[in-house]
């Protein structure tokens, strides 16, 4: 009897703990809007746009971040920003109309709470999606329907990594934006960038040179700069030495600060083989990137397919990004078979 009572009490306490950790049921309760009816965003939420957007099947995306008053992001590790407890991040997806808004909140030193909110058709309300997500929610192209991610999908990109807020980083927010970045979004006056963050003291312990020299990917040509930026945003959040996939040995994330290390793409992808073999390739191993030959590069093959067991990225997209694919093909073709093209003679920032 005592045991059952205790169990009930423990269950109640635990349920309260879950309720405290779980994000609100409605997007309007997360603090995004000052006036939910008119979708007016609260002025305390900072609007931003990464210079290399992640491809999301053509969704028009908007992003905001909230930092609690008096706090700052610790950038003492330039590539691994540490956000203050209470940070909130939103990303809105529009496919003709608002479809979903994803949300993250840092609830303790080591924990983020996440949710995605699904908009009704007349865009008057957005309700937290079920944990398993919603498959094939809305049509985004002939025969293709957008999935609202489930909790395990969110975890695939965000959980357990040191970098959990993807797209809000020194390189992505650099004022020295790449004019050749595929699907670059227009910058509006209300947006913050790295320089703004430094000026407003919202970054602590950052490299001092960021104030005068915002990060830029070193490259031998504008095409290479854009290609490396594209790989950074679309592949590098998983394919990086800081993630649980580091053992795969393909590193496509660009460092924000100058580094003595060799370029990660050249060191791990150009003329490097991986586990994946191109269909019909009888060689010892297909190159991830074969200079001068995009058709024999597994990176291109996997970008160009939406076969669910071969595609890259493996989730979050059902439509090939033709503009991004063309850029990567052009870059690899231009290597002319000489890997040194992306090697030693790097353009000075």
């Amino acid at each position, binding site marked *: 009897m005592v*045991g059952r009572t*205790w*169990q009930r009490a*423990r*269950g109640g*306490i*635990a*349920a309260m*703990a*879950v309720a405290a*950790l*779980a994000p609100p049921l409605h997007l309007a309760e997360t603090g995004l809007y000052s006036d939910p009816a008119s979708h007016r965003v609260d002025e305390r939420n900072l609007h931003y746009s990464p210079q290399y957007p992640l491809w999301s099947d053509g969704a028009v995306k908007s992003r905001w971040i909230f930092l609690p008053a008096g706090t700052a992001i610790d950038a003492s590790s330039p590539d691994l920003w540490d956000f203050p407890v209470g940070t909130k991040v939103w990303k809105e997806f529009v496919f003709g109309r608002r479809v979903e808004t994803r949300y*993250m909140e840092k*609830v303790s*030193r*080591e*924990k*983020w*709470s*996440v949710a995605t909110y699904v908009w009704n058709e007349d865009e008057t309300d957005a309700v937290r999606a079920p*944990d398993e997500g919603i498959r094939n929610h809305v049509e985004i192209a002939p025969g293709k329907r957008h999935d609202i991610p489930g*909790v*395990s*999908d969110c*975890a*695939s*990109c*965000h*959980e*357990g*990594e*040191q970098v*959990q807020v993807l797209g809000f980083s020194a390189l992505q927010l650099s004022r020295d934006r790449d004019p050749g970045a595929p699907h670059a979004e227009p910058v509006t006056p209300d947006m913050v960038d790295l320089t703004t963050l430094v000026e407003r003291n919202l970054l602590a312990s950052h490299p001092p040179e960021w104030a005068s020299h915002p990060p830029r990917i070193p490259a031998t040509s504008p095409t290479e700069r854009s290609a490396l930026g594209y790989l950074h945003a679309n592949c590098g959040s*998983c394919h990086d030495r*800081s*993630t*649980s*996939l*580091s*053992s*795969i040995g393909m590193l496509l994330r660009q460092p924000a600060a100058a580094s003595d290390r060799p370029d990660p793409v050249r060191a791990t992808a150009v003329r490097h083989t991986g586990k*994946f*073999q191109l269909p019909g390739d009888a060689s010892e191993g297909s190159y991830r990137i074969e200079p001068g030959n995009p058709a024999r590069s597994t990176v291109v093959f996997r970008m160009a397919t939406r*076969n*669910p*067991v*071969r*595609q890259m990225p*493996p*989730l979050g997209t059902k439509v090939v990004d033709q503009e991004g694919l063309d850029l990567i093909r052009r870059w690899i073709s231009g290597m002319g078979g000489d890997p040194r093209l992306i090697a030693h003679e790097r353009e000075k920032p």
Partner: protein
Amino acid sequence: MNFGPSRQVLLGLVVLSFTGPAASAAEPDRKPDRVARGEYLVKVMACNDCHTPWKMGKDGPEPDMSRMLSGHPETMPLPPPPRVAEGPWAIVVAASMTAWSGPWGVSYTRNLTPDPDTGIGKWTEQNFVDSIRNGKIMGKGRPLLPPMPWIMYRSLTDEDLKAMYAYLKTIPPLRNRVPEPLAPEDLQASSR
């Protein structure tokens, strides 16, 4: 009597909370108790039913334990699966129990031995746990395919998953490169 919070509540906490730093890639804990617990779980959860190739023994089909948990044999290329008529009989299984064809395409059971190139030798404990929790290769890659019951196994505790990983790291490494799975569109292409 269990005085702890229910497993459902614990799971709720797990799935709603994103932990910070990545787990260490250190060697698994090889404490005998933990490895023994992992061995027990791997056996009773029927991992060998699909991940160990079956052979015909004197008493009928049986798992070939000389190839324990090494997945579909690379030396056993298969023809396209037979077409199945519309209806309730939807799944075809190779005699080895390591290749399955169904509405999802064709799946080949993976090499779970610690071979570094063809098995899970380079996987971290976190990769293993994430694979089962998220239903994706290494937690981030392509989806795990039927008949892998990850949707049920994801309810395992972290401790049990880590014990299974610890045990799998102790079994003999067998070099066996399992074929990539096929999607339905691959089968349509091959039947043209």
